[in-house]
């Protein structure tokens, strides 16, 4: 009986492998569908709001107040209490936790930070809502002018584009072949698109830290793609499929370690900067599993086959 289930298990594994091995062209539908849906979401977002992402106050200007606070608090209650004093503004409240325990309250408001009266009003609204005396608490405040937020966003988009271009150049110079290089670059691009779309769908606002996360994603994403492409194109031992399987063993270890580390960081951190970065990385890394091991593998195999038809053995 036990032997049978082991056999069954093996045959499931084997048949999955067969699908992966033989139907790779069909499997390509998955990552390209993800990419298409991602682009559609971003397109819809831009059409509806005129913005690529939901910006938090660090990108659109406003005030962030962080108050150390040890008690559990109702976010929606605090939010509605503060919002009632600022009917025209966007108020967001978050509870900062460290390993489950509440350590502070963070309030974001897109009010004009240069207007001292408004800032004072916000502080007093927080005071009355949390029932604390802020003059005695060691609170932190961040004020971002709206023009700075906008120019920072524009700048970081340019930086991101240049970073992507440089990365593509390095990859292209190294491999010197169009299709494999393009496949690596496309995989990185797909990771970013999917991560962005999922973040948008979750309704998460992105700030300066999020921009950094997308840059980090470029690095983590191309790691596995480079590993795969080098092993398939520059190695001679075994069949192409053998090389792909060996890449998966190494590459998946890398990705799983990265995913687990981001989950740990997400669970423990109380910093908004780290939280944003880790969340975007986590989503990007999960997307990367599909984009490397289905999309990039599929494109690479198509390339190898077209070469084989021309009589070039890889």
């Amino acid at each position, binding site marked *: 009986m036990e032997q049978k289930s082991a056999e069954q298990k093996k045959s499931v594994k084997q048949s999955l492998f067969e699908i992966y091995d033989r139907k790779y062209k069909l499997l390509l539908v998955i990552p390209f569908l993800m990419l298409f849906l991602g682009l559609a979401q971003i397109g819809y977002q831009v059409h509806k709001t005129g913005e690529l992402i939901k910006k938090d106050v660090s990108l659109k200007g406003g005030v962030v107040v962080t108050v*150390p606070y040890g008690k559990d608090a109702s976010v929606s209650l605090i939010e509605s209490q503060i919002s009632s004093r600022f009917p025209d503004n966007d108020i967001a409240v978050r509870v900062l936790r460290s390993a489950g325990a509440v350590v502070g309250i963070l309030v974001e408001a897109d009010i004009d930070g240069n207007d001292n009266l408004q800032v004072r009003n916000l502080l007093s609204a927080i005071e009355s809502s949390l029932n604390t005396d802020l003059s005695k608490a*060691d609170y932190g405040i961040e004020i971002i002018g709206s023009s700075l937020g906008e120019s*920072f966003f524009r700048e970081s988009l340019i930086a991101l584009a240049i970073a*992507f271009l440089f990365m593509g150049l390095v990859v292209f110079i190294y491999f010197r072949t169009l299709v494999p290089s393009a496949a690596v670059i496309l995989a990185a691009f797909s990771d970013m698109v999917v991560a962005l779309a999922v973040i948008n769908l979750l309704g998460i606002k992105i700030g300066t830290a999020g921009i950094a996360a997308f840059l980090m994603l470029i690095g983590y994403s191309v790691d596995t793609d480079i590993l795969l492409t080098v092993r398939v194109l520059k190695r001679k031992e075994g069949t192409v499929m053998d090389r792909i399987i060996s890449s998966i063993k190494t590459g998946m270890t890398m990705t799983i370690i990265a995913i687990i580390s981001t989950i740990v960081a997400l669970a423990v951190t109380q910093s908004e900067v780290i939280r944003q970065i880790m969340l975007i990385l986590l989503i990007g890394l999960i997307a990367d599993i599909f984009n490397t091991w289905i999309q990039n593998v599929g494109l690479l195999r198509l390339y190898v086959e077209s070469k084989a038809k021309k009589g070039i053995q890889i």
Partner: protein
Amino acid sequence: MNHKIRKLITNWRVVLLVIFIITSIVAIHPVLSEGVAIRSVLTNSSASLAGIPQPKPNVQSVARERILSINNKPVKDVEDYYTQLSGIGPNRTITIKTTKGAYKILTTESDIGLRVFEAPATNIRKGLDLQGGTRVLLQPEAKLAPSDVSVLIDNMKERLNVYGLSDLAIREANDLPPPLGTGSQYIVVEIAGATEEEVKELLAKQGKFEAKVGNKTIFRGGQDIVYVARSANEAGIDPSGGCGKEGSQWFCRFRFSITLSQEAAQSQADATRDLNVFYDPVSGRSDYLSEKLELYLDDKKVDELNIGADLKGQAVTQIAISGSGAGQNQQEAIFNSLQNMKRLQTILITGSLPVKLSIVKTDAISPVLGEGFVKNAILMSLLAILAVAVVISIRYRKLLIAIPILITMFSELIILLGIAAIIRQNIDMAAIAGILVAIGTGVDDQIVITDETLKGETANVYNWKEKVKRAFLIIMLAYLTVVVAMIPLIFAGAGLLKGFAITTIIGVTIGVFITRPAYSAFVEIILK
């Protein structure tokens, strides 16, 4: 095995790693520090009158002067410091013992004028978001030439120092240059341990400069001083006076000229007309007038100058300003006197800030929150490293692989922090994110090395050198892509993510050139 270990510890790649780790630990300089560190000394306060020097702005953290005891009662922490002081009434003489000496301080109604903070245990510079303080991003309302920017920054430093704020950093930040960006300029002011209100109030002040003789204002900064000579041939060590030795000390004189407006020259003539010429009994000469020209910055006296006897009652627009500096040797005296000259020039220009600045961003982080962030970041990093260790142990089922990977991760962390301490790069939240990326890619690379050399069918096909070389081809390419992706961030977006980009680049560079070769040496010698 013994033979292998000897071979390992004499391998140059391992030796290089050990040298880097030791250097880094020395640079980080972990100490068990007692007492509280002095952040700044308020001008004209009891503490400054008692001779406690203002800390130099770029002093390494653990080298800061620390208060060890008050009246022989040890000071435990910042809270203890304030409790002890508040227990002592005004008009009493107390003895404060510090790491550099003992001072007798007379207490007054107000506090004694020391700003203190928990004594740092390492040279790692915590960024503002981790230690508490205020950062202000200012934007000039008109485009400034590079030389004007440095004048502006010197100016602001001088003014903030007048208020006893010495633990500060002022630097320029930029947007991408055209055509990529607008090329906007920014000035970043970071002041540790200051609240947002204090900083805003200071920056809002006009920077009033006045020169007085007796109680009479002769000229003000800005409109009255038309020109301050700063070029090499108009300002510097006085060619006629030069340097000389007096006892064991060297003294050098500097001179430069300033041009006053006609009105200012006239009021100077009026103020000096009735003054006497001062006879110096020591030198037997009568070079100067009996009153001095006193320089005030925001109503605080910052310097005084002798007025040449020949200027008495004269409406001269071109005035030569001179002073001196001392040192143990001629070189030091020259350096110090040029330093004094620069400071004086800065003060004279002050009040005429080249352009109006507007505040575009303010961050104020409370020290309490900052402290929590540090503890949290350490906890997070340790747990993440632990998680990595668990996954690696499961994957390879060999402690001989998992432990070296862990050691490599920790050495990377130590070297990265050591280099940050040496180049005085602040470690803030974004930099911690950068450290995490660097160590994360490091783990990736070690997995590549391990798999390329120890696993799979390739094991017997290539010789060892070839296998290591193949692993490094993948690693180098991955490394280059990360570095080129980070470079644009150094120059873009008002430098807000510069710390992140720089730590990431330093981290991955250490990884590729120092820790990874050592790891591959380990794999080669022990596991082959």
